[in-house]
């Protein structure tokens, strides 16, 4: 076996560091050092300057420009060794690649798989030890949030988005298999391969990229949210013990952006617990001056962080603040429309108002996708029961940390 046959080299990427096992190629995937170190990547459109860093105190930055993928072998100097590259794309939904290296190659399709293969490359071909190619940018469809049933007629309001991860249409986990053969006398004498695939963090970040600039149906702001940095995506923490309901995210990723959500939930739950204790000793009176029993149930955490695809499924706010990780929705753990529910919201609201000088957050009561009017905190017509309509009709309390930009829920 020729001495010059490549001994496999370890990754010494200029932009990151990772130790790889032998029999693999040196692969550079991304301008993002952390993505590259994880052999993951995001695909950034070349014509957009997208902000990078989503938390409220993130320093101002822009996503790095997309760089092509580079797969590199230690140069093979033997004249009688040919090099042949191959890239396999496991789903036609990903789109084809653009090969930047000056090699001749052919593309074939078999069922759902696309394969690009170079000609066997002689030693006279310049830079044959290096394959450079650019991935096709995912196309997010539809280009606007739109109303309607889901793609299978399932129950939800809008025609876009998914609650899944790695959905082939909405948020595919783009993967490329790079394969290189060393040929002698038309026989393969050595093969090396590498698989590069988006990890969960980059899958989420790609959702933000894909939704940047998405048009909102009707009036309102389009989706122009910054893309989270990798270190802003963290494992989902447990919610506080004195609140029931959902975790801080219902997303299937197991990761989230937590821009103060946990503290918000804790604080709200504590305030409500204090209110329950107070009104047990100092009961509210109904229209007949009878004491109203204080509901004993805990509050329910209804919504926290939403990844963009999930937000598109459930919400009509393309730039919705739940995608920023600094907002939560809390509901009464009572049947909607019941008098107990109104009492819960009344106690919660008054508790928050009493604490507003030492609680740096913004909150509003909402019903059916809109905040209450000011006068609904005074009116008592639907129904007439001594409780202002804002509390009868509320279906959740929304609360978020202050952001400088105008965002919707």
């Amino acid at each position: 076996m020729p001495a010059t046959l490549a001994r496999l080299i370890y990754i010494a990427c200029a932009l990151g560091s990772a130790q790889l096992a032998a029999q693999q190629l040196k692969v550079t995937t991304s301008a993002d050092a952390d993505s590259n170190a994880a052999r993951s990547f995001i695909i950034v459109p070349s014509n957009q300057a997208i902000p990078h860093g989503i938390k409220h105190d993130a320093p101002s930055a822009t996503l790095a420009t997309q760089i092509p993928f580079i797969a590199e072998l230690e140069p093979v100097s033997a004249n009688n060794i040919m090099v042949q590259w191959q890239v396999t794309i496991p789903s036609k939904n990903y789109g084809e690649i653009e090969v930047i290296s000056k090699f001749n190659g052919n593309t074939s399709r078999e069922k759902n798989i696309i394969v690009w293969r170079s000609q066997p490359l002689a030693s006279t071909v310049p830079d044959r030890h290096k394959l450079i190619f650019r991935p096709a940018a995912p196309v997010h469809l539809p280009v606007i949030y739109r109303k309607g049933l889901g793609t299978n007629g399932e129950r939800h309001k809008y025609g876009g988005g998914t609650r899944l991860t790695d959905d082939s249409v909405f948020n595919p986990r783009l993967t490329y298999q790079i394969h290189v053969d060393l040929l002698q006398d038309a026989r393969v004498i050595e093969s090396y391969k590498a698989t590069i695939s988006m990890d969960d963090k980059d899958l989420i970040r790609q959702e933000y990229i894909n939704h940047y600039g998405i048009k909102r149906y009707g009036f309102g702001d389009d989706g122009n949210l910054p893309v989270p940095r990798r270190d802003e995506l963290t494992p989902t923490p447990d919610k506080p013990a004195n609140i029931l309901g959902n975790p801080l995210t219902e997303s299937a990723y197991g990761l989230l952006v937590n821009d103060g959500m946990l503290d918000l939930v804790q604080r709200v739950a504590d305030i409500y617990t204090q209110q329950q204790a107070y009104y047990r000793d100092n009961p509210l009176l109904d229209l007949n001056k009878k004491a109203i029993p204080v509901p004993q149930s805990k509050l329910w955490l209804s919504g926290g962080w939403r990844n963009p695809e999930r937000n598109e499924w459930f919400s009509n706010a393309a730039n919705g603040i739940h995608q920023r990780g600094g907002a939560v929705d809390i509901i009464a753990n009572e049947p909607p429309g019941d008098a107990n529910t109104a009492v819960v919201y009344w106690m919660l609201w008054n508790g928050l108002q009493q604490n507003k000088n030492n609680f740096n957050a913004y909150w509003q009561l909402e019903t059916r996708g809109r905040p209450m009017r000011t006068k609904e905190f005074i009116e008592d017509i639907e129904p007439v029961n001594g409780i202002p309509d804002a509390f009868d009709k509320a279906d959740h309390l929304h609360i978020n940390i202050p952001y400088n930009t105008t965002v919707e829920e």
Partner: protein
Amino acid sequence: MMNKYLLLLFCCIPTITWADTGFNELFESDLEAHNQIADRVAAYHATDIALDTSAQQTELDRLQQDIETILQDSPNEPLYWFISGLNHNNLAALAAAKNNSEAVNQQIELRNMAYQKAMLLDRTLPLRLSARIYATMKYGLPAADKITAIKNEIKLGGSGENDTQYIQLHWSQVNELEKAGRHDEAQAALREMQREISRLDLKNPDYQLIVERAQNEINQGRAADENKVTRITVTKEEPSTTKPSMLYNKNTLWIIFFSVLALISVWMIVRALRSK
């Protein structure tokens, strides 16, 4: 003079304030006509209108007249009946702001009638009114209509922002049926809720707490009703020891008297006719 200026101001208002509202957006319904009227009604419903009460009254009355005209042309369109009800609700809110409780009650009654009409016209599938509309209508309606609105909202998949709100919608159906004493239907609604929890694969054990609470409410309701029935069947009247006399019954005497009078009258008439 002042009215002229108000009118002028009013005419200018649409170009400023109508742009931002959205009936379609708020109620997830695409109107094919009369969008401006619907948008304005929706704006009163959902936003703080920056007009004094007199100007609001004028505008709301005018809107109601426009809606009545539309309904004369299209009496079978449930969406227009909903808009009518919504505007009556706006009028009720304005009356409440003026402390006119009589007017509030009147407008609430008109609102409920309009909403009932809307639901009556929307009984065949696929439903034409949206979940958001049903979610809006149900507040303040009498129990039976509220239950119908909730059922339809469920059929349409609810209008909440996550699965929790959808399950809570089911819970509200159980609760309202139970409060109305419809225990069997409440039990069926609870089973439906459990099926949905399972279908959506909601593994959070806190959902079972809701199921247990709802079941306890149904059990307590049934037990309370059974107690009421038992109390009624135990109460018996003491049997009478004397038989009432037919002859000396007051009503019977009057019947006999008038019967005799009638016979005498007939005899006199016949006699008079014969003598002629």
